[in-house]
């Protein structure tokens, strides 16, 4: 039992309520606190607020005023989207859904007191806590690179300014220069993301700097939608893209930002742009809260609750959940299952069996879109795939154009589903 100021205040409120009519006690609506206003967190906050119609008090803690999606950020690099079209604010969540949007960082969780500590010093009590902080980069993952080098060698793997920086660097490359990407090891957010990025960089360079080269150094033997990407690269950008996999040193890489060099298994290459996407782990707050096993936070598939605390749920990239890829679509899907379960636990609303789905689209070249997707169910052990689909190589142009158009519709729908 903690006798801090908050529980004393709570005690006063409870005893005065006890003297009044029973309905007054209902005023103490259950409190859900959501940390992180991205694909998982914004969706969960919106669904809980919407479906409880005021019966649950929802607080969303998110430091940024505008969320720039990583999804479609590669299309910005390729010249298919404006940066402003990727930015979304929290105005509707506050004004139309009654969510208490707090622009601050969560810096700690007191699981005994059931409070979240904010950077400003405030403490926010919860009955249920939902954490969807996304990823952080692992220290020392790429020797020579750290956060102080990210303006020289951007990751562009969190949305916004990093993506703008990378694009500016690409457009400023000398004629015939080299763009290098240090690709991440599994697991990481958006498995096809680095390869869609390479496609979009190739498209941009084809237009402004056609003799430029792209070099991917990759610790993975295989990657998502590989046959589709390789076919497309050959078809649209023949000869521009070279990939060095683990067999040829792709897993033994260091960088030197001062010299703008990449050391691949002892061979030093001078490059003009270097996009370093380091190995990843769950956002820091999940580690601070003591909910991780290694890099990620294990969850129960049925309701996305933490395996070490039934009153805390973890969504999206930060969760170790089983078969789903770390994607915005997956985080949004998990958030709805979680919202239904949390509402059921806090109110008398009905809880339905968990069901998840995912589709990841990638753009290879103008009007050349591909997709991969699956359905998932909750088992005792994990979120388990129950069947899926993938675009085929050699598809006709009309199918590819249609697939791209679907992704455009999906972007509009999912961002509306997140932010209202």
């Amino acid at each position, binding site marked *: 039992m903690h006798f801090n100021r908050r529980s004393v205040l709570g005690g006063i409120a409870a005893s005065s309520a006890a003297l009044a009519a029973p309905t007054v006690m209902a005023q103490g609506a259950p409190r859900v606190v959501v940390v992180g206003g991205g694909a998982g967190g914004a969706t969960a906050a919106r*669904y809980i607020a919407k*479906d409880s119609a005021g019966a649950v008090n929802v607080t969303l803690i998110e430091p940024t005023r505008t969320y720039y999606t990583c999804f479609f950020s590669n299309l910005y690099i390729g010249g298919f989207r404006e940066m402003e079209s990727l930015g979304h604010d929290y105005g509707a969540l506050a004004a139309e859904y009654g969510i208490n949007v707090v622009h601050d960082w969560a810096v700690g969780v007191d699981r005994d007191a059931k409070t979240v500590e904010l950077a400003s010093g405030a403490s926010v009590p919860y009955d249920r806590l939902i954490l969807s902080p996304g990823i952080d980069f692992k220290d020392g993952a790429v020797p020579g690179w750290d956060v102080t080098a990210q303006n020289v060698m951007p990751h562009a793997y969190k949305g916004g300014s990093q993506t703008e920086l990378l694009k500016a660097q690409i457009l400023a490359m000398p004629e015939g220069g080299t763009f290098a990407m240090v690709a991440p090891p599994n697991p990481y957010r958006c498995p096809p993301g680095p390869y869609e990025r390479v496609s979009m960089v190739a498209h941009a360079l084809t237009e402004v700097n056609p003799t430029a080269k792209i070099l991917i150094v990759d610790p993975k033997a295989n990657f998502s939608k590989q046959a589709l990407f390789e076919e497309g690269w050959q078809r649209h950008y023949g000869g521009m893209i070279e990939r060095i996999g683990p067999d040829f040193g792709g897993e033994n890489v260091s960088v030197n930002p001062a010299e703008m060099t990449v050391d691949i298994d002892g061979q030093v290459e001078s490059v003009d742009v270097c996009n370093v996407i380091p190995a990843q782990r769950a956002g820091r707050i999940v580690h601070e809260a003591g909910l991780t096993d290694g890099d990620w936070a294990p969850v129960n598939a049925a309701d996305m609750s933490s395996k070490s605390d039934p009153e805390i749920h973890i969504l999206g990239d930060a969760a170790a959940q089983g078969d789903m890829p770390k994607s915005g*679509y997956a985080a*949004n*899907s998990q958030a*709805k299952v979680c919202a*239904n379960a949390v509402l059921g636990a806090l109110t008398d*609303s*009905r809880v*339905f069996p968990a*069901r998840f*789905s995912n*589709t990841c689209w990638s753009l290879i070249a103008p009007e050349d879109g591909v*997709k991969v*997707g*699956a*359905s998932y169910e909750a088992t005792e052990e994990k979120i388990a795939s*129950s*069947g*899926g*689909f993938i*675009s085929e190589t050699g598809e006709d142009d009309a199918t590819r154009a*249609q*697939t*791209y*158009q*679907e*992704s*455009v*519709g*999906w*972007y*509009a*729908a*999912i961002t*509306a*589903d997140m932010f209202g």
Partner: protein
Amino acid sequence: MIQRALFPASAALALAGAAHAANDLTHPEVAQIMAIEADSDYGAYLASECTACHAPNPEGGIPQIHMLPESYIVGALVDYRIGEREHQVMEQIAKRLGEEEIAALAKYFSEAE
């Protein structure tokens, strides 16, 4: 609200093809599903899977399903489920919907704005 034509544009296209179930109330499976009493809470929950793609005001290559006639939605989902209408995403989604689920979803979207 904007007045809709009775049949969505894509329905006309679909019906121009082979014997589609869409909007065909005599198709035995469609009639069977239309007879089920839809569970509205379940429909609202299931619909959250769809709204990742189907916004109330759709853009790009995603068709509108909000405010479509109930029997049309049932017919389209049955067509995807039996492979009568081909589409990788919608077949994957429809394959795991039972009759109960289709009934609940069709009712939900036919009334959702």
